[in-house]
């Protein structure tokens, strides 16, 4: 067998094992809308941890982080900081969100807005913006999966067919399973990913430089400026770092899928304890940075930094190991992609289409429409991944500049009585508009600050001003809050 056949065979074997695990986990239960999207709210600490961890190790971390370490250098460090801080933020807001979810049986982020603010148009806007910005995140996963197929086939499969293959794999995987299946495939994915990251993160620097220390010493001699900010970029200094870390760590749980995954937890305390241990999950991430830095010395001058990790693996290890790494990588794209698509499909069908166009739809019909949307949304993301050349990290940053605009509505919704639906509606519109405008006109970063962060600040101001300018409204969470205060919030 040729090396490419070996590598490809192992990758598809891994994907197959993942799909079988998913089918097995999904088959044991009746799949109604509640099961398919929030698994009947029965996940304990371990499964919630796996599900949320599944969202951390995406293609973004695997190929994107190493890719930015390779092409940008210092600014890539924001990734280590924001993931850590995202859990700190989650510790305080997630249990509150979970509590609201339990009391009012919410499934999605849009349900949360509808319950709190009691305005259909706001809930529909939230659903629409959510779906809109899931697309670049999905595009990231498909692009990553495409890169894996392309590199593992020793460029025998070109970029476009590779992405088409990625599309078929992902859509098939989602349609055949639901969120419970996804959590179990996460187990397989995370174990493989851990093995892959530890092996290559340590072996690559040892093989070429005799250790991690010597590798950095060599980098210091030749590319010292690459290691600190702004690294190899002209415009990503400390102000960019701070604004980006704030934007992304505050926005981490504003993702519709991450927000929705909170509802699958068994108790608010599960979510809280989960947040305490979650930062530890990022501990292997630096290993991926090591590979990106090593690649800079081993194969300088790559046009696309996102290829750095896989090309280094291909050059340094036997083909079967490239297959193992590729397989792990394929799962790290499939699992998050599935989670994203599930969230987007459900949001579109349940929170956008039904309330606005077909109020009479039954839950089963909604579930069916959600499945149709799975294909449609994945196809749109595929279209963009074929025609765009943004780096994987660049895609995620763009997506963050959109979804973080939900933050004022969520935080004020939980902690500020005076906020109004109109205020939040206007804030989201202005925030998203401002972010899009700055990015499209190539003003990101703007005055050294992350464009999404500038938009978020504007969003906060607009939300506050417009809330004061409109009449106070009842708090959709208030009634029940009082009852619970008497009973205590023990799970």
């Amino acid at each position: 067998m040729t090396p490419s056949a070996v590598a490809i065979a192992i990758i598809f074997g891994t994907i197959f094992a993942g799909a079988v695990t998913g089918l097995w986990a999904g088959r044991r239960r009746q799949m109604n809308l509640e099961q398919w999207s929030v698994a009947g709210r029965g996940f304990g600490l371990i499964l919630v941890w796996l599900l949320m961890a599944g969202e951390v190790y995406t293609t973004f971390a695997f190929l994107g982080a190493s890719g930015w370490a390779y092409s940008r250098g210092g600014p890539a460090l924001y990734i280590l900081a924001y993931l850590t801080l995202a859990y700190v933020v989650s510790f305080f807001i997630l249990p509150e969100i979970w509590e609201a979810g339990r009391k009012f049986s919410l499934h999605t982020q849009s349900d949360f807005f509808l319950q709190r603010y009691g305005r259909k148009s706001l809930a529909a806007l939230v659903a629409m913006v959510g779906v809109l910005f899931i697309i670049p995140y999905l595009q990231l996963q498909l692009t990553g999966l495409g890169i894996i197929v392309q590199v593992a086939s020793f460029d025998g499969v070109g970029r476009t067919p590779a992405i088409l293959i990625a599309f078929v794999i992902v859509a098939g995987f989602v349609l055949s399973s639901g969120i419970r299946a996804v959590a179990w495939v996460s187990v397989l994915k995370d174990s493989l990913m851990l093995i892959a990251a530890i092996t290559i993160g340590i072996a690559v620097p040892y093989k070429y430089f005799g250790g991690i220390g010597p590798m950095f010493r060599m980098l210091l001699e030749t590319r010292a400026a690459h290691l600190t900010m702004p690294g190899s970029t002209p415009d990503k200094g400390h102000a960019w770092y701070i604004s980006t870390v704030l934007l992304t760590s505050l926005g981490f749980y504003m993702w519709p899928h991450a927000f929705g995954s909170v509802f699958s937890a068994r108790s608010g305390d599960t979510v809280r304890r989960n947040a305490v241990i979650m930062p530890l999950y990022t501990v292997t991430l630096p290993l991926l940075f090591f590979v990106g830095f090593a690649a800079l010395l081993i194969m300088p001058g790559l046009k696309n930094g996102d290829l750095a990790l896989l090309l280094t693996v291909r050059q340094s290890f036997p083909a079967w190991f490239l297959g193992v790494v590729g397989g792990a990588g394929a799962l790290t794209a499939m699992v998050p992609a599935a989670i994203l698509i599930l969230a987007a499909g459900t949001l579109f069908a349940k929170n956008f289409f039904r309330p606005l166009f077909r109020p009479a739809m039954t839950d089963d019909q909604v579930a069916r429409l959600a499945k149709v949307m799975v294909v449609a949304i994945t196809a749109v993301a595929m279209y963009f991944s074929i025609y765009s050349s943004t780096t994987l990290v660049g895609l995620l940053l763009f997506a963050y500049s959109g979804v973080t605009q939900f933050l004022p509505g969520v935080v004020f919704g939980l902690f500020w009585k005076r906020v109004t639906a109109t205020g939040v509606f206007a804030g989201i519109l202005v925030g998203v508009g401002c972010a899009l405008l700055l990015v499209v006109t190539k003003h990101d970063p703007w005055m050294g600050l992350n464009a999404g962060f500038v938009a978020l600040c504007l969003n906060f101001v607009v939300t506050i001003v417009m809330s004061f300018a409109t009449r106070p409204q009842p708090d959709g969470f208030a009634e029940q809050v009082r009852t619970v205060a008497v009973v205590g919030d023990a799970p």
Partner: protein
Amino acid sequence: MKARHLLQLLPALVPFLAVCFSVPLWDRVYPLVLGLPFNLFWLIVWIPLSSLCLWASYHLRQRGRISPSPPGKGLPE
């Protein structure tokens, strides 16, 4: 109630200061620690330390829930 909530927030502010706002102080290569550039080393160290800070927040919260509320305050939570 409010006071205790603020108390829980305190340990959580530490990671924000350490890995976000203070970046000009630690974003440099030297001193190398364990062969790593200082900025990378600093961020890695703060991964477990952030967990520790949250653990502190968690315990402040638990203690507040079990023991009687501070004087002059109402029901826990």
